[in-house]
């Protein structure tokens, strides 16, 4: 270009002026819908706010998190979120659910991705088929599986008894031993496709001639997988796992619908909403939301650091 430096810098100024203007609606929207509500939630967690009278909230410090009273006998009684067994039960449920579900999804997702990465007749059908669980709304899949897992008329009990896996019908969603298994089954079914597609994208970036060379050298396919495929697909796999972990930590709808009253599956989000909206312990629920936010924020920072997400907008 032959533009003089003055014209050029005027152009640049104009560009950055309109850039600011273009960003404004988005930033404002995010501030109102995410930033401010988050600050308020954290604030409420330090108050005695109640759902019916949010405006009258008074500052109570850390009381919702931890407080104690010294009795005359010298005994100290602790109360608050940090000593609440129901909270720690929910934390444990969330962690257990997240780790097991994401591990299973990574395993099955890898198998499906390897299958889809092979050349065979009918590959398009498989790809279309695995998109179906992904497309189905979580609430619908919870309902569908709730029916299939029904203790009396559920097809899964029927199938398992025919095959001989179980000898009497199981109340999957109601029984305390199997409620978590039921949730895991549905979640793995629903989200493995997403995992598989992310891993597949990683697999497709591996150049084919590496395998060619390995084949010529007579490397066994299993060894090929562990020595070539796995190390090369690891970055994509890690990103997928982190995405899913962050997602699993905040699970709400599946559990709310599939196993509504089970203490074995109650996660942090479910418990927090219960306190916020249903039990009228608005401030206590806010404290739980705040802690969940802190946990996920820490994990996100770790994820960004591990994933070394490309943040540069490119040369322009």
């Amino acid at each position, binding site marked *: 270009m032959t533009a003089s430096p003055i014209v050029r810098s005027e152009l640049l100024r104009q560009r950055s002026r309109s850039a600011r203007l273009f960003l404004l609606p988005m930033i404002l929207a*995010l501030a109102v819908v995410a930033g401010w509500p988050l600050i308020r939630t954290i604030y409420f967690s330090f108050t005695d706010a109640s759902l019916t009278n949010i405006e009258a909230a008074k500052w109570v410090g850390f009381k919702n998190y931890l407080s104690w009273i010294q009795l005359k006998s010298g005994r100290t009684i602790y109360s608050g979120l940090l000593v609440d067994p129901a909270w720690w039960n929910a934390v444990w449920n969330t962690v257990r659910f997240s780790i097991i579900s994401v591990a299973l999804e990574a395993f099955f997702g890898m198998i499906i991705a390897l299958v889809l990465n092979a050349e065979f007749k009918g590959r398009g059908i498989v790809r279309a*088929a695995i998109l179906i669980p992904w497309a189905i709304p979580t609430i619908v899949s919870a309902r569908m599986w709730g029916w299939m897992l029904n203790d009396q008329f559920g097809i899964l009990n029927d199938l398992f008894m025919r095959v001989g896996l179980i000898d009497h019908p199981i109340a999957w969603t109601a029984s305390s031993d199997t409620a978590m298994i039921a949730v895991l089954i549905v979640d793995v079914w629903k989200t493995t496709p997403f995992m598989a597609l992310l891993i597949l994208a990683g697999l497709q970036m591996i150049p084919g001639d590496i395998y060619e060379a390995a084949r010529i050298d007579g490397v066994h396919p299993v060894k090929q997988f562990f020595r070539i495929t796995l190390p090369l697909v690891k970055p994509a796999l890690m990103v997928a796992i982190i995405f899913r972990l*962050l997602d699993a930590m905040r699970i709400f709808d599946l559990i709310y619908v599939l196993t509504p009253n089970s203490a074995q599956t109650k996660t942090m989000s479910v418990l927090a909403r219960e306190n916020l909206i249903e039990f009228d312990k608005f401030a206590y629920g806010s404290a739980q939301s705040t802690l969940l936010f802190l946990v996920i924020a820490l994990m996100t920072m770790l994820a960004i650091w591990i994933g070394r997400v490309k943040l540069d907008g490119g040369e322009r």
Partner: protein
Amino acid sequence: MPMSIVKNTAFYALVVVIVVCAVFPFYYAIITSFKTGSALFTIEYWPTSFSMANYVNVIAAGSFTRNLLNSIIVSGCVVAFSLLMAVTAAFALSRVRFRGRSLLLLTILSVSMFPQIAVLAGLFEVIRLLGLYNTLGGLVFSYMIFTLPFTVWVLTTFMRDLPVEIEEAAIVDGATPWVIITKVFLPLMWPALVTTGLLAFIAAWNEFLFALTFTSSTETRTVPVTIALLTGSSAHEVPWGIIMAASVIVTVPLVVLVLIFQRKIISGLTAGGVKG
């Protein structure tokens, strides 16, 4: 030779298992939705009856059609608003150099990781203050928290990869950034807009927590809430046939859309993940 036959058979067996596992629950929901009365409670693997009674019931009874319309309105508005804001924002984030750009991108990325429950209390207050409680507007407003970061992020990656040259001619001709966006970028961006719009639509269509919390009457509910709250007169009388019919109605349009746009959707999903 026999070895390769064994291998091939095993491979195709695996393929069949994957397809059956993926499709069976939806298939079973469909055949259940056509059953009524006692047929509902006999376990069958193949379709045996074909009655539209459940569909007639679900459409006639209650406010299901109203809720369906609500879902369409809310998801449509969410897509329109987030794409509108995201296109301009993505242009600024990908094509203009300014201070704090990386920080802004980082913030947007972390908002997309927000647990919805973390803003529930604060959003509840904001929505009530704005008079949006129990309105469709309240849902459109709150859904921006997950559609906006995602659309901005994907469109930014897309615009970043477009060559510099396409803009240069327009700059030389003295076009303003707004003209550049609408005349130069938009025509090139249709594929990306369709993909992100579709993904945002699906996310809004499936959303449950906000829809459950920010509405209180049956007329303002969206379909996921309706389906979740469909119960019979007692715990032992869950109307499974009707629930399945409602589920099929809600899901079929999504499945059709996804199958039509499957290549675009896959590339959109992985653009958010692998590249990001």
